[in-house]
């Protein structure tokens, strides 16, 4: 009997985990200030910026991937900038995958964080200000702890969403073993080759993982605190 997962499958599995972990970390670092800005600002740019961040929700991933490829490629503006800095090109590398995935999953992290920050309301932050807390201090001592459920949701959604992405990976990552061949690509390969049982195993892995992630998210969420 064949092993449940081939070496190549396992390689894709670990690569996907590594990608998801990296992307989640980057997303939290990037999404937190963005979400905070969106929740606090009264700028007229707030809505346009929010719309741009939400774009991947409705945009076909292939479209996003295509534009990224154009932008990051040797002829693209960013690609030329990167080349001028003496760095290697991003498309068809793990780094390129991270960039694409971050953009693609950004709304899944920014929106729960933004909701969590907005739910805090102005009052606790004002009270903290009157207790001598500076804006940075208020952010770390009040906003972040109070938005903890939002951080959990954001991390889980960002991670799970990255685990399963396909379109962006296809466009910008290619299908290089150990580099950019993630689980969803591997499943696609199996199906194309008619290896339905292997595709089934991997798909089931992703399905179970996604369910476990969502379940963990709702279990980790602290009980709703009464106020008033």
């Amino acid at each position, binding site marked *: 009997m064949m092993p449940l997962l081939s070496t190549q499958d396992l390689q894709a599995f670990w690569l996907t985990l590594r990608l998801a972990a990296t992307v989640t970390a980057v997303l939290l670092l990037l999404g937190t200030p963005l979400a905070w800005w969106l929740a606090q600002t009264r700028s007229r740019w707030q809505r346009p910026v929010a719309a741009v961040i939400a774009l991947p929700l409705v945009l076909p991933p292939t479209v996003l991937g295509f534009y990224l490829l154009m932008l990051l490629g040797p002829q693209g503006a960013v690609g030329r900038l990167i080349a001028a800095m003496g760095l290697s090109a991003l498309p068809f590398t793990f780094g390129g995958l991270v960039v694409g995935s971050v953009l693609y999953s950004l709304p899944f992290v920014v929106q729960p964080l933004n909701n969590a920050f907005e739910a805090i309301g102005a009052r606790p932050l004002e009270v903290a200000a009157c*207790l001598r807390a500076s804006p940075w201090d208020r952010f770390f*001592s009040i906003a972040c702890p109070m938005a903890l459920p939002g951080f959990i949701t954001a991390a889980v959604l960002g991670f799970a969403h990255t685990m399963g992405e396909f379109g962006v990976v296809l466009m910008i990552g290619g299908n290089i073993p150990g580099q950019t061949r993630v689980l969803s690509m591997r499943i696609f390969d199996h199906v194309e080759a008619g290896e339905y049982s292997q595709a089934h195993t991997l798909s089931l892995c992703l399905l179970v993982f996604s369910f476990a992630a969502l379940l963990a998210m709702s279990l980790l969420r602290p009980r709703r605190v009464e106020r008033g």
Partner: protein
Amino acid sequence: MAERRAPNLRERDDPRGLEATLAWRRGQLAIELNIALPPRGITALFGPSGAGKTSCLRAIAGLDRDSAGTASLGDEVWQDSTRHVFVPPHRRRLGYVTQEASLFVHRSVAGNLDYGYRRAGQPKHIDRDALIDQFGLRALLGRRVDALSGGERQRVAIVRALLSDPSLLLFDEPLSALDATARNDLLGRLESLHATLAVPMIYVSHAIEEVARLADYLVLLDAGHVVAQGALQATLTRLDLPAALTEAVGAVIEGTVVGHDAHDHLTELAFAGGTLFVPRRGDVLGQRLRCRIGARDVVLTHERQTGSSALNQIRACVIAMADADHPSQCLVQLDAGGSVLLARITRRSWHALALVPGSAVWAQVKAVALGA
């Protein structure tokens, strides 16, 4: 009308308290705050709902930045619009307590108390333990704040503000969301706090009873404007206040507890104009006590009555009379041995008694009306 300064309230070399000349709009209401407060004691910011009291407090705290003008506390300039000076709230050393306690739900009671205390550098002159005991929080320190009652939450919020070593306390109707029992308990604690308070406090309220018991100085606000400010007793017995405030007018008598009648549960209070019986408040002899005599609760007679249920009869002399907010009534200002009283009576009675400024009268006050 609005007074720019109240120089009679402080000596020339006294430190200055809060001085603010600020103007801004809040929706339809144009607010103009023009106050100069004493450097110590409690100033009540009193006025009907919608007068802009909370808005004023927020402007003083610097929480809303849309006001133009100047604000300073002592030598510290907090705001000067012409020089583009604006000190943010966290550098103003405030102690802000809001109507509904805004405790940090992710911190325990002790965590809440220490939030400002730590940031103030745990100053030596603040006795954390004494404050915790004074407000009965010792047993609550380890509790989650969402397990506290309304009164307990407010006590935590107040001590949290006091521990942050504030230079100005801003209390925005801290008792209004509480039930009567919790309100009375906290009012008593605030009264004892008043005696030891080293920093000025602005106390916003629309409950005149709280104001009468706590405040030394009064700023009356109506429709966004300061209509009067001055020492509490003098301001509350003025006859020229706008109609919206006439329900609040009345004398505030401060006296010394000279006796208790244990059998009838009464406390006897000596003040400049004589003595008053009030329902027993459980106070020690010699203690200073305040008592508000509402203008509605005073009956005027020519003679001292013998067959009357009114326990208190005070000899007084008519100073002046003014129209009340209803055409059938008038307000009579009385002098009782140096204490000013107000009586709201009908015009018919004024004429029937043939009263004129200078008339000698007896002011009768039911002790029942002087309940805490």
